[in-house]
């Protein structure tokens, strides 16, 4: 058996917009809008140029609630490039694209492209290589049963790949679908399990290989770092290399800047610059979508508290100055600094400031919780879809739903300390 190579990708989420980015007239909007498409194009170009032998996709090619047919049309056009080059494309549907209206209408452009059946596990045997690909698409969005249990036994004398969309146990930040265990997969006897669903790349096991390639393009701040697909090289029926190829065009990064006690505003900005420079280098020329989080009890807190909005804009401008136009999009500037020891010491003073600060510390959160919640609800009621759109993780939504606003009150207390110190 000679050497062959294949690409394993998953969770393309085509045309799913990047989330959390405010409008920025200086940023390359078209590039960001088309990021998921461009990432797929990069993959296809790589596959064609490098002449890989086939490509497998482990589900979630697009979002289920995205009904625009153009997405399906684009996908087909891309797959056609592969099949025109004689590269088979085998995919399964995941929880996102199982019920998609696009899925029901999608027709593959060639016999070389195939979406495996959703009623039962199906085996696709490549004609030009001794490779069998076993897989089962999701029939509905919520498939909780362990699909892997019903996968067929490996074909003898062939290289066997299991294509599966599953969380493989419970994983933080992801719903549990088609749950199974590494042990269960390992014992099926396949050579390679091409998994999908988890957006962070991870190798769960070697020999047999059980691999999550991660998603092809990060779409929000909790999908940071490089994104791409796994390139698997097989020689004489044995995997000799599994490497990751990065195809993303927008790189997400969370830049945590922890400020020391004595750090003033200039020092904070200098730290932001330094941290940004590192991330920009890591992005290797890609557009960087960055969340800058400043934390720590520091002298700069006083200046930040004076005008949080202005401080944010200053940091955004700093980021733009370091990165240059078209290379960064500051998703959010989170100023979570605390008052420095000097400001906190004001509490000990025997004057009115100290008295007021002590009163702030001793304030009873319960007495203002209703007022906070009332405002949150009033604002969220301004439009019906607002709560759902902003998302359950948003602080205002949490407070409105009855979550104790302790963290918020602490933030407010820190803000006031900074302002009173001015």
């Amino acid at each position, binding site marked *: 058996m000679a050497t062959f190579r294949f690409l394993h990708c998953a969770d393309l989420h085509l*045309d799913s*917009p*990047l*989330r*959390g*980015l*405010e*409008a920025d007239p200086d940023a390359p909007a078209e590039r*960001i*809008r*088309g990021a998921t498409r461009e990432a797929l194009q990069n993959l296809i170009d790589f596959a064609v140029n490098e002449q890989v032998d086939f490509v497998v996709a482990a589900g979630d090619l697009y979002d289920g609630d995205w*009904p625009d*047919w*153009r997405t399906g049309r684009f996908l087909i056009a891309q797959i056609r490039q592969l099949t025109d080059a004689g590269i088979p494309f085998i995919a399964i549907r995941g929880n996102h694209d199982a019920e998609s*209206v*696009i899925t*029901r*209408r999608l027709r593959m452009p060639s016999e070389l492209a195939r979406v495996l059946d959703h009623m039962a596990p199906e085996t696709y045997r490549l004609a030009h290589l001794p490779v069998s690909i076993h897989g089962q698409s999701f029939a509905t969005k919520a498939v909780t049963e362990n699909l892997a249990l019903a996968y067929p036994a490996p074909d003898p004398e062939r290289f066997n790949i299991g294509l599966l969309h599953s969380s493989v146990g419970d994983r933080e930040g992801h719903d549990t679908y088609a749950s199974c265990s590494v042990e269960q997969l390992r014992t099926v006897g396949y050579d390679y399990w091409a998994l999908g669903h988890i957006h962070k790349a991870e190798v769960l096991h070697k020999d047999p290989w059980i691999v999550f390639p991660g998603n092809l393009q990060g779409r929000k701040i909790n999908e940071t770092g490089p994104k791409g697909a796994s390139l698997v090289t097989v020689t004489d029926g044995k995997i000799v290399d599994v490497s990751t190829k990065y195809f993303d065009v927008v790189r997400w990064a969370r830049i945590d800047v922890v400020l020391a006690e004595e750090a003033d505003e200039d020092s904070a900005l200098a730290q932001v610059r330094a941290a940004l420079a590192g991330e920009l280098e890591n992005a290797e020329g890609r557009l960087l979508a960055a969340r800058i989080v400043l934390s720590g009890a520091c002298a700069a807190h006083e200046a930040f508290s004076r005008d*949080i*909005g202005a401080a944010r804009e200053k940091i955004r401008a700093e980021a733009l100055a370091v990165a240059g136009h078209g290379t960064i999009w500051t998703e*959010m500037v989170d100023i979570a600094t605390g008052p420095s020891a000097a400001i906190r010491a004001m509490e*000990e*003073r*025997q*004057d*009115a*400031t100290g*008295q*007021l600060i002590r*009163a*702030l510390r*001793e*304030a*009873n959160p319960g007495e*203002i919780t*209703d007022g906070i919640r009332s*405002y*949150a609800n*009033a*604002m*969220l009621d*301004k*439009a019906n*879809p*607002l709560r759902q*759109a*902003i998302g359950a993780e*948003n*602080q*205002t939504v949490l*407070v409105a739903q009855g979550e104790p606003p302790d963290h*918020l*009150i602490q*933030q*407010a*207390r820190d*803000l*006031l300390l900074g*302002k*009173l110190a001015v």
Partner: protein
Amino acid sequence: MRLTSLILNRYGNYEAERICFDPAPGKVNILLAPNSAGKSVLRGAFVDLLFGIHDRTEMDFRFGYSGMKVTAEIVQQDGSPTTFSRRKTRGNVITGPDDQPLDPGFLHGILGGRDRKLLERLFVLDTEALREGGRALLESGGDVASALLSAAGGIRQARSLKRELERKRDELAPERRTSSRPFYQALDQFLQARRLVSSETIRPDTWFHQQHELEELEEHRRQQNLAAEAASADIARLERVRRVRRWLAQLVDAKAWLETHPDAPRLGPEPRKALEAARLDSATKTETARLAAEALEHAERNASDVVVNTNLLGYADQIKQLVDEAGGARTAQADLPGRRAEYDFCLARIRDLLRQLGSDLPPERAAEALQTRALLARTRQRIKEYAELAAAAQGAPERIAAREHELAERERQLAELPADADHRILEVLLQDIRVGGNPATRRQEAEKSLAECDAALSACLARVPSWSAGGDALAALTSPAIDVWRRLDADIAEKRAEVTTSRERLEDETAKLEQAQTELATLSAGGTIPDDIALGRARLHRDSGWRLIYRRAFTSDPPAAAEEHEFAADVPLPLAFERAINEADAIADRRAVDSEFLGRVEAARHAVTEAERRTETAKQRARLAEEALNQTRRAWVRLCKASGQGEDAELPDILTFLTAREQVIETLQRRSAVDHALKSLVLRQEEWARALAATLGEQQSDLGVLLGLADRALSQAARRRQTRTDLETLRTQAIRELRDAVATQAAANTSLEAWRERWRGVLAELGRPEIEEPAETEAVLQTIGDIQTELRDMSSLMERIGGMNARIERFTSSVQEIYRQLPGLIEFRDPFGAVRELDRRLDQERASDQRHRILRDSLDKARAAAAAATQELMASQVQLHAVLTLIGADTIEAAAQRLALSDERAAFELRRDEAEAELRHAGDGYSTEVLRIEAAQHHADEDAARIEAASARHKEANEAAQRAAADASRMRQGMDQQAEATGVNAAAADQQAAIALLSRTLDEALLYHTASLLLSQALDAVEQSGGSGMLRRLSTIFQKLTCDLYVRVTSEPDDTGKADLVMIQRDFPDERQRIGQLSEGTRDQLFLALRMAAIEDHLESAEPLPFIGDDILQTFDDDRALAALRVLSDLSRRTQVIVLTHHRHVLDLADRLPDGTLFACQREPVATTT
């Protein structure tokens, strides 16, 4: 700590000075120093001593940084004396008396953690801070917490901070919809993007529907194209038939003639051409020979008649040259007299000019009387210099006189100006009055503000729905909080929704019931199926028959006839029994057969029962929901009535009402403050009017008039000062100009004398009299110039006259020479006439010579032509004979007959060939036989109609195909555009961007909202904790400061429930004065009292530090200033008090304090240390 002395070395304007203080408790230290003497510097030095001298302190303005040092001699809390210094060096260390650094904890023990900010804000007070504090109290509106905080630490107004937080929140996301705010902008963007995503999306079904339509269009186009192709083929065939018909006929005709004339010769065109050419050539050559003989004879005759004069023709070139020269000679002869006259005039003019110079030389020698060019130029330069020097010397005395006159005038005007008056007091008073702007304007603005408040109040009241009882009543109205209204409204909405839901459920259940009933009825209508009862009854009937038979057959108790009759009626019992069995079996069979149907009926019945039960439950729930709704609604109506609102008021109405009510209350409060401010302003302006009247010595009491008078007085004084300054400037200028004029005159005279010396030299060179003036010499120079011009003209005229004479003489001699060489010509007198005659004769001879040459040429040509014609005639006759032999004829006529037959054969062969070629060309490759068969299928007359019909079919199919293609193209284009459009992706991205902005804006606004609530709670806590003790002390101090005019300061809740400072006057114990109603000075005293109380409060838990008051009594009248000094004396028992002032009367007032209270601080020089 208490200061014994403060020593300043090279600090600010102090070089080396000690200021001594008395550290004893109960002492008020007063340092009297004029303005700019360094009071503020002293204050700064004290603070720098404790907290360090700034790296870039401004106190280096006189001595620089070197040697800057502040030293304090103090008494510590335990009574021990200590000395320490602060030197401006790197590190700013504290040193002891021996200049050695002290323990870093030394100052900490004194300061106890207090920082520079605290010291400056609590223990140091100057006029500006006092006035600022008074204003802050006014702006706080009497808010106790704000007042305490402001006075006790100088932190920014906490209520302002709260307002700032609320403003920031509302700038981002106010609760009331404001389109310009980021939250609402983002919300609108979000909703718009959401709509756009929905509208821009292409659904797969839509796409495939379009694709199906496109495929149908393509199929239709293909069908029509096929039809068009068929029609096109038909047309081609018919056109071919029409094209070939005539060629088929021609081919038949030609073949027929050729078959009937097999002997016709094939001579071709060459013999015919040769015969015709030979015949024509022979005739032509005969005629040519005859004409050549005639021409020879005629030429010989003409050549002998012509004679030519060759002698005259030999001089043709000379004669032509004379003709050319005759024009120039004639012109010279005509101009010569005029030039000679001009020459004579020139001579006369020169002679005249020489006489003017006093010379007797003839004109021809006039050059001898002229000077050199250099001398003449020098003379002109001297004359020009003289004009400028003479003008300068002549104008100088006049300018000197004018400057002297102007100087005298300025001196006189200055002497007449009155002396300046001193208006400094008036200026100071006016400055005080106008602090804050024009009094009249301020009053107008205050009145306008009051009017605006009234108008705003009316407007606000007008905006309150269904309210006519006035603002106070509205403010007094008790209305539940907005949250209560919202909750109730939400309850109503929820219950209303429940009612709707329960009604919908009831309708749904009722519909289901009706459906079930209908189904049951439908099933029942399908036929009656015997039920269980009927079956049981039949079986019972059967069994009773069996019992009768059994009794009759097997027992001794046979049935009676009546019993049998009852069962069997008129039939025999067995038969009746059999019928009964059959009937029961039939019913059972029927039920068995229709068991499914029966099941359905049963199920329908069950469904009806179930639906009835559910309908009843739904009715019950609907009734309960309506009752709950009515109950909540009644509570709403009760609240509406309590708030003065109608029963039908909705939440937006209530929100409008509450918002409007809040605006009314705010406006009422604002009006009250404005009203107080106006009254206070009126009182102050009356005081100012009295002071102004006294200063101006006027009886007038109107402030505006008095201000006008004061302005006029100040303006007149200012004008006088300006006039004096202007006149002094002009006087200085006049003196300077006079000096300049005298100097100019002297210089001009010196220059003129030097010129005269040079002028005499020039006159000597010219040979002019020594005393000749430049003007006379200038006339002589002019005459010399004229002579030079005339000499140049004369010379030119002489040259021209000589040339003209020479030309005439050359021409005349040439003519004479020709005449000598051509004998036989007529004698002449006028050479010009002779030349004209020669020219005419020459033309005649040239014409004769030309004619003679032509005739000789003609004769030669005629001879040659006659010989050639004879020879060609003989050759032509030989050629003709040869051609006849070739044709096979003896004569020309026989040859013509044979040629005609040959031509006819060739024509038919040509027609045959042409027909065959055309058939090959027009027959589309078909053979002649096939074409003939096609043509024979229909008559030629039908060709056009058949082609027209086929064309119509073709056109119709073609147009249909084109329409289908266009439709398909449009559709494909539309689909391509749709597919390429990225609007939906852009909208989705915009939607996410709006969500991100919404999320951030909401979080930030919520943070500000939370901070505002938290701060509000803290302020309430401060107010409650700090109010009682400090207020009592404040009350006592204020009473002292106002000389018992005010006896109490306390806090009372205002209309909103917020604690407010109120002051009670001794004479009006029932009235409450608020801060806005105090005069500015009294407000200052209230602030001083607050500060004192705050310091006392602070000292309860901290080491004392000196209190430094810098001119804080400036705005106090004498009584209150003395009262303040007494209060400061009290304070000095707790901590050292140092008062800096530039008013001596403060020191005088302090003298009235009990003996030993006042310590007048002394300043003494000390040795400079570096």
